[in-house]
């Protein structure tokens, strides 16, 4: 199981939880499991999120691996100027 | 439509074109003579990207009518190099990275060449004020000013 940290704004769609545990081997699976567990997260996840794995911000690649001890944070999808 | 026939000299070449009286010299250089080195950044004389010299006087070609070029001598960025020999300013601008995007560069080169012909030994402040009408959004002007000061010094030495 991987522990995923949600930013405060997402918690309203995850029964108020700030951390959610999911079974996942990569970033794509994290997002898939999250939506399965909390369908309310779907619009936000569909419209784009980044996933920080051990401090490295994964902006789009769903194949990036995650491990049980990984520190995982959902953050807003990155853009720049 | 009553077009005006204009005979002029551009970068030393005798040139003729037909223009609408409302068309600017910039329009004529770019659209009729295919000299696209001068750029339209504003069309209102505020940015200097269209700088050319008209009878050796630095002007914004967006604020000159094509018709006014009759009988005049025009110099654009395309005429700065002497054949395959770049002007010292052109060389130094590349060396100093005095450009990032390069859109303001033609205007700045034309303006600076005109300054150095008038004043071969300008102070940094004089250069900055001379170029106040040449906007650059990329560089913060630092490398431009350094390139110009260094070129001026080189050119003085060469004389």
């Amino acid at each position, binding site marked *: 199981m991987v522990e995923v940290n949600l930013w405060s704004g997402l918690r309203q769609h995850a029964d108020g939880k700030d951390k959610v545990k999911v079974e996942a081997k990569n970033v794509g699976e994290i997002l898939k499991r999250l939506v399965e567990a909390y369908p309310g997260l779907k619009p936000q996840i569909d419209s784009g999120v980044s996933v920080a794995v051990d401090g490295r911000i994964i902006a789009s690649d769903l194949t990036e691996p995650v491990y049980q001890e990984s520190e995982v944070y959902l953050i807003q999808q990155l853009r720049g100027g | 439509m*009553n077009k*005006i026939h204009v005979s002029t000299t551009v970068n030393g070449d005798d040139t003729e074109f037909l223009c*609408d*009286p*409302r068309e*600017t010299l910039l329009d004529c250089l770019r659209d009729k003579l295919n000299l696209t080195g001068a750029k339209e950044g504003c*069309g*209102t*004389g*505020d940015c*200097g990207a269209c*700088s050319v010299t*008209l009878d050796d*006087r*630095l*002007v*914004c070609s*967006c*604020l*000159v*009518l094509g*018709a*006014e070029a009759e009988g005049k001598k025009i110099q654009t960025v395309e005429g700065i190099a002497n054949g395959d020999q770049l002007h010292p300013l052109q060389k130094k601008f590349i060396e100093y990275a005095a450009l990032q995007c390069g859109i303001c560069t033609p205007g700045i080169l034309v*303006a600076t060449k*005109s*300054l150095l012909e008038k004043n071969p030994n300008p102070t940094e402040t004089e250069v900055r*004020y*001379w*170029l*106040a*009408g*040449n906007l650059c959004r990329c560089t913060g002007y630092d490398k431009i000013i350094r390139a110009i000061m260094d070129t001026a010094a080189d050119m003085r030495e060469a004389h």
Partner: protein
Amino acid sequence: MEYYTPESFNKASEIATNAQGITRFLAGGTDVLVQLRTDMISPDILIDIKNIPGAKEIECLADGSWRIGAAVTGAEMSEHSELKAQWPGLVEAMDLIGSTQIQGRATLVGNLCNGSPAADSVPAMMAANASVLVVGPNGTRELSVQDMPVSPGKTSLSKGEVISAVLIPARGNNGGDAYLRFIPRTEMDIAVVGCGVNLRTDGEIITEARLCLGAVTPTIQVVSEVTKLLVGNKLDQTILDAVAKAASAASKPITDKRGTIEYRIEVAGVLAKRATKIAYDRARGLK
């Protein structure tokens, strides 16, 4: 649009007199071409006066006064060392307009005819008590610059009238002028406040004085109160403070994208003080 290049001011006046539709004279074009490009005005007739003999001449007349042709550019004025030495304030005022490129084209007469309350050269011309030569359908007349502005964008010239030259009085002894403007940047902006001062001294005593403010009234005007304060006095801090107060009091500005009423009133005083000091020093040869 029709484009004319007449060979005389009489001819220029005749074209304008007979013109149907919107008519503009073209000297430097730094206002007219901007208006054209931004679709503010689309003239039907454009009369280019630059090719008229004398239009590009600066001439010092026998009595020491100056005749500046209507198409003389700011750059040509700045390069004229004698004119600049005698009327530094006026030349600097013209030189402050726009960039080096604009200076290669812009003219005193254009600045005046554009009718902007914020025109830089006009307070300086007015302070110098300059006049213009007007060629019209009924002949030539001399008109004081002071009588030119009517309202923002409007002058007292009538249809068919064209200015052929600006006349600047002889400098004479112990005179000095100055022009300062406030802008947010160091260059390129329209004056938020402008102030021209011209005065004459006898020793330390001021004998003649005219101060004009720009961008703080619908038309550029002489502040006669300042003349009263200065004439007959030495310039000290008390007088300077009074000048500042009078300039602020004469300011009836508006709030717009370039400044607020409060700001313009305040800065009119500051510039009046600073410009008066410069003109005073110049009059006394102190620079």
